[in-house]
């Protein structure tokens, strides 16, 4: 059995590790604080899991889910949960996260990260499911704020208020995706300062950064660009308000060469260090 590198995320910059870079990372072992992978790519076993376990010998690993559907109205998928639980047992991840979204309702499955109305009914529903997942995994789940292209007219609270109350009820942590917030500011007119003010600072355990695209005036969270200057600026503001946290560069489509990703991570690292030095 291989020895895991570490079971806590260091407060440094990491990258989302995707298939095109597995080999290069394992052969060159670049200096990286930590890596994050998508859970579903390692369900089952075989070559993907073997690769992840080798990565795990050198870097702390964060497991990031895209398929749990915390707000879905179909029952939590038992097979999915059981695969995640098995994966946690072998990987011993430094963090486990999921999105504040849904992907299944009324017999339909939509493989995407979809928004829902922030109502008291939804809050009770999501809180129950977060508790179920945390009980099953025996650990804290980090819940990530969502990027949205529309909003529901009957929402009773903001996403920030929803997340804060979810933390209070379940003890979950928050994965704060700064780019998602920026997308929501531009698309939906969300108040960034209020959102950040609403988050309980101690519950925020990790930041995400990525690039978006624009389609017909709508910012789409495509993870296929470098982080934009406006998002870096928002990130610096977040660092001043909430302090440094482990920060991830996500790139999922038109994935660039590893040095490009490393360069983005270095920019985040500089800002983390500047924040720590009080600059």
């Amino acid at each position: 059995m291989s020895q895991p590198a570490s079971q806590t995320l260091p407060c440094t910059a990491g990258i989302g590790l995707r298939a095109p870079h597995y080999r290069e990372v394992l052969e060159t072992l670049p200096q990286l604080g930590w890596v994050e992978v998508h859970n579903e790519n390692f369900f089952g076993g075989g070559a993907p899991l073997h690769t992840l376990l080798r990565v795990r010998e050198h870097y702390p690993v964060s497991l990031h889910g895209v398929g749990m559907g915390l707000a879905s109205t179909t029952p939590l998928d038992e097979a999915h949960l059981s695969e995640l639980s098995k994966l946690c047992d072998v990987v011993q991840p430094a963090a486990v996260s999921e999105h504040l979204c849904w992907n299944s309702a009324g017999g339909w499955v939509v493989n995407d990260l979809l928004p829902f109305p922030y109502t008291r009914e939804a809050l009770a529903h999501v809180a129950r499911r977060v508790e179920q997942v945390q009980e099953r995994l025996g650990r804290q789940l980090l819940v990530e704020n969502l990027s949205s292209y529309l909003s529901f007219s009957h929402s009773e609270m903001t996403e920030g208020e929803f997340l804060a109350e979810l933390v209070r009820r379940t003890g979950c942590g928050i994965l704060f995706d700064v780019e998602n917030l920026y997308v929501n500011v531009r698309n939906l007119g969300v108040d960034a300062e209020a959102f950040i003010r609403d988050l309980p600072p101690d519950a925020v355990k990790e930041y995400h950064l990525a690039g978006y695209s624009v389609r017909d005036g709508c910012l789409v969270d495509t993870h296929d660009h470098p982080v934009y200057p406006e998002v870096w600026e928002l990130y610096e503001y977040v660092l001043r308000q909430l302090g440094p946290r482990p920060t991830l560069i996500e790139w999922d489509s038109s994935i660039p060469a590893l040095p490009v990703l490393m360069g983005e991570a270095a920019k985040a690292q500089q800002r983390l260090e500047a924040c720590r030095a009080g600059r």
Partner: protein
Amino acid sequence: MLDDDLTRFARAIVCGEAPPTQFDAWYGEYPVATAIEVYRNNYRGNLHDALAGAYPVIQQLVGEEFFRYLARNFVEQHPSRSANLHHYGAELADFLSGFAPVQELAYLPDVAALEWACHVAYFLADEPMFDLGRLMQIAPERYSELRLRTHPACQVLRSNYPVSAIWHAHQPGADSDFRIELEGGHRLALVSRPGDAVQVSELSPADADWLLRIQAGVSLGETTAVTLEQFPEFDLQAALLKLVAQQVLIDFSLEPLP
């Protein structure tokens, strides 16, 4: 309430129904219809990417552009059923059999079936190697009673086309200068998972006949006798050595297998 909201939202995305009135109508620079269109594109794009990931050979055979058209048609007929995108696309071989524009490419459905077997095999959990030491503890006169267990990844595929050769010619690093004789009759391809590598190989009719009966849970003695009747050239020892090495045979029992 929540369930109604989400179900209507899902129908707008998957079926293209008019956006429900539960959404705010306008967002700074675009109307709600644009947002729904973005979600519809994401949905179709994600399923297209899942299909392309599972069927790289089909994509090469028909070209990326036609594959997009094909995937769009497939997605319309086959809504997603699983939150795990790696589960999407099992029905592509059936779909291709009935898809008018590819009827000329008669080998396509069988290549798709082979690719799906490989895709499933790739994500399966590891299985132990056949334990020869444990086999030594069984009296040789009882060997004929043994039932052999095969790796869950193992699949025998029959085709009128050389699907194994087609598959190999379209793997990364394969020689692009190849000739495949499409005629030549009935072929058998074997998908196996030695260690964590997916392997595709050709199987002789005798070995396939034997293996299919073993997979069905028939005892070693009876299977071998029936195969030898039809294929006197069948070489049991060679077949055993090869199939154990390929991790096709992974376990055995004197009792009927579950």
